[in-house]
């Protein structure tokens, strides 16, 4: 699943990765500081380090001379593999990711999206990628989206702003802004209905 395998798997479905696709208008230092705060200012947060490696992978593309870039690319590849091996977070640099992206818990995360907006939160075991090997388009994720643990978001789809993708949901269809989906395959659920259920669930306050 590495981005190094051009021409098969996801390699050709992602953006080419030939330029710095970090969010525009913010320097790498400020961007990393913001990512650090997004991850609870916790230096032990694997999510932060995975994202930092991603940002570095993009930032290095600003070095246009290939020979000068080679050591940075080597460092990026090593760090990327390290993050995958240690924490199970596969976040290729050419998957475009917006600001304040948060990986709330690590493990079995694969993010092969075409584009992810701002203020998106994912959790462990989240997969974003192709629907079939023969298809070449990965999802586009909007802004302010919450993705529950175990969710799979696959195929040439768009997830609208402010949506919620529930835990263990398999989403392979377009979703308008403000939706809440849950299930295998994903079904729409009404947010207020869910509210009622959780209030009436007989929680014993201790």
């Amino acid at each position, binding site marked *: 699943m590495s981005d190094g395998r051009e021409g098969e798997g996801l390699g050709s479905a992602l953006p080419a990765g030939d330029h710095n696709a970090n969010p525009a208008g913010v320097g790498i230092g400020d961007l990393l500081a913001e990512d650090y705060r997004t991850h609870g200012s916790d230096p032990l947060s*694997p999510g932060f380090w995975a994202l930092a490696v991603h940002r570095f992978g993009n930032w290095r593309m600003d070095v246009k001379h290939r020979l000068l870039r080679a050591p940075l690319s080597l460092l990026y590849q090593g760090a990327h593999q390290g993050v995958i091996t*240690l924490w199970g977070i596969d976040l290729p640099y050419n998957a475009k990711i917006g600001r304040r992206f948060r990986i709330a818990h690590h493990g079995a995360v694969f993010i092969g999206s075409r584009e992810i907006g701002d203020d998106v939160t994912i959790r462990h*075991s989240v997969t974003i990628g192709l629907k079939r090997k023969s298809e070449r388009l990965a999802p586009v994720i909007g802004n302010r989206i919450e993705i529950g643990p175990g969710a799979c978001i696959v195929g040439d789809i768009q997830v609208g702003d402010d949506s919620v993708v529930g835990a263990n*949901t398999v989403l392979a269809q377009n979703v308008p802004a403000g939706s809440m989906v*849950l299930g295998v395959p994903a079904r729409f659920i009404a947010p207020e209905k869910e509210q009622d*259920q959780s209030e009436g669930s007989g*929680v014993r306050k*201790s």
Partner: protein
Amino acid sequence: MLRDLSSGLLQFVAPKSGAKEPGVQEPIPVPGAQSGAVPVTDGRPAEELGLGELLAEDFATHDRDLLQPGFWAVAAHRVGRRAGNVELRAARLALEAAYKVAFTGIDWIWGINLPRSVDLGRRVRLWHNGCMLLAARSIGNDVHIRHDTTFGPARGTEGTPATLPVIEDRADIGSGACVLGGVRVGHDAVVGANTVVVKNVPPHATVLGVPARMIPT
């Protein structure tokens, strides 16, 4: 079918000493009132056991196998729970630091995140490892939990303990299951693989699906 499978697994892990584990193979009828009645050898809750006694029991629960990540995760939790009680300040600080290192290491290497805020019962068995986030309010005795399971708050309710799930005694949690919000998984319940529980599960029930539905046993 799930129940068959789980009881098969439970038989498989029954300790060699034999009769020490009543109640795991056939559901114990729980007399009325308190759902969390404890059908254990001596009936003491985990807090009343000495650390050594508790760790020995956890070790036996995990097949007396030091290579089981689940044993180490539970052991770190036991030590972390008691670290604050140590009188001598230097020893307490050392123990707290050791706990922090062990907790982070277990979370990073094996992906088992079992915070010490969880009220953990006796003989809890963690099968396999990876992607486990077990931030429940309490986990009862003889609960079996597999890999990729998530216990935690429902969306938007983070931070208050009343919004964390309660897993009662002898519940059997399948791999990939998520139990979210201030819900209660009843004793002897079976939560199937990849199930998402957002409502209470009655005792002895079997649930499966996203979201969870009761299935006949």
